């Protein structure tokens, strides 16, 4: 394999399965046995934390779980840390799903928050109401934004929402904040029909690949804060002083990134050395 071009060719054309094996080891190792490396707190997360701190007891937040279960695994630290802040502050939550898999999420999320629910006596029906999967498309978001009670009369278990804190909500403008956790489902619809139309402040917890797109929304003032992926969640856990799954996964996160960088360096040294030595013009991707 390494006849023409020698070691450089080997470095430039390493088998991609090496990437898989190394990544698997450096991610699995720290997850089983965390090292506890220090982390830096980004300005984005500090701003997110500050925005949540503007909420007062009794404020009503439209809490939209725009994620599938797979996306939840990436957003989990941010979701849990944000809800710990909501529960501690006594904020009222109107929880909606943007995906049919959302029906599996409350059991999982509230099980993780059980200690906090018990500590602050935070109850379904009084402090939070789950209205279920109400965002199948943009028309539904627009309709709900304009006339909440015309579109939602019962919670996800079929109980009437009359006589609850949701009586105060006539349209999207009556919410004090929108807190969205997204893999890219109904978020743009909510920006179009709730933020632009009613001026409700909206904070976003987004998966990594959607962060660049949401940074533009943040810069334009459409979002007031952005929590970026698992790392943002870990930073929020640190800020609220409640370590969780995010901080536990940061060692794996760090080592995963560094190992990828090593593969990139190795590949480039190989590419440079091989093409310089042999004058080869061939593409030197990994196999």
């Amino acid at each position, binding site marked *: 394999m390494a006849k023409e071009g020698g070691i450089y060719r080997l470095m430039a054309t390493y088998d991609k399965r090496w990437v898989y094996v190394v990544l698997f080891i450096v991610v699995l190792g720290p997850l089983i046995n965390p090292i506890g490396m220090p982390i830096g707190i980004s300005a984005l997360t500090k701003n997110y934390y500050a925005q949540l701190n503007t909420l007062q007891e009794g404020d009503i937040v439209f809490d939209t779980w725009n994620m599938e279960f*797979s996306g939840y*695994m990436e957003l989990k630290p941010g979701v849990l840390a944000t809800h710990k802040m909501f529960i501690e502050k006594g904020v009222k939550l109107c929880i909606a799903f943007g995906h049919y898999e959302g029906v599996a999420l409350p059991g999982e999320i509230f099980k993780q928050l059980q200690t906090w629910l018990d500590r602050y006596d935070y109850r379904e029906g009084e402090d939070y109401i789950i209205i279920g999967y109400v965002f199948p498309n943009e028309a539904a978001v627009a*309709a*709900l934004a304009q006339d909440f009670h015309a579109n939602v009369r019962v919670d996800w278990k079929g109980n009437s929402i009359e006589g609850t804190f949701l009586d105060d909500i006539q349209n999207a403008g009556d919410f004090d904040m929108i807190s969205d956790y997204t893999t890219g489902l109904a978020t743009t619809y909510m920006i179009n029909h709730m933020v632009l139309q009613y001026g409700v402040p909206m904070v976003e917890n987004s998966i990594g690949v959607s962060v*660049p797109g949401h940074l533009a929304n943040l810069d334009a003032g459409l979002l007031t804060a952005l929590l970026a992926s698992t790392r943002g969640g870990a930073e929020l856990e640190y800020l609220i002083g409640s370590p969780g799954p995010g901080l536990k996964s940061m060692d794996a996160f760090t080592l995963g990134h560094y190992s990828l960088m090593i593969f990139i360096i190795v*590949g*480039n040294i190989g590419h440079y050395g091989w093409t310089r030595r042999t004058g080869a013009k061939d593409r030197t991707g990994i196999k």
Partner: protein
Amino acid sequence: MTVLVVSFLLVFVPYFIPWGPLDWLSGKLMTIAAVTNAFTIVIAVYSQFRRSGRFIREKRKGWVYHIYLLVLLAIMTLSGFILGQHAGAYEWLLLAVVTPLSSVIYGILAFYMASAGARAFRARSPQAALLLVAGFIVLLYQAPLTGAFFPGIEGAATYITNTFGMSVSRMFSISVSIGAIVLGVRMLTGREVAFLGFTEGEE
């Protein structure tokens, strides 16, 4: 076409002229649209059964998977309708089958993305070298440990994402929006009729 134009105006105009009765009418129309949209799932299920049925009848490549698909579709739909979304059996199907599979597919992406990243970041030209340097700085910043020892990396990474990255992201958003507006205008003026089920020249 008339229905389309009137419906469009009823929803579009209240954004610029807030008038009570018009707002009410627009709200009603959107609620009707939302409810009607929810029923389209029935059409989706019907279409899937028809398509898979054709695959199975003609024994095309992968026809066995279509049987598997229809059986699972039937199980999830029937258990949801008969038992309800809060029944133990339905929740079990969701939590023990659907959600782990969904998470596994998502997790596997990390390996493909890492391998694709390692392959893409090669300094084959001056432009590629610039991309490599920018990508490397952002990647270095994304590793949580880096920020703890080199806080200055955040400034460099933020500069790259807030200037080059954001300009491209905005260009993409603006292009998509303009495309959507153009499509909307074509639909309203009758130049685009495929969405109504007509082919070119037929109306």
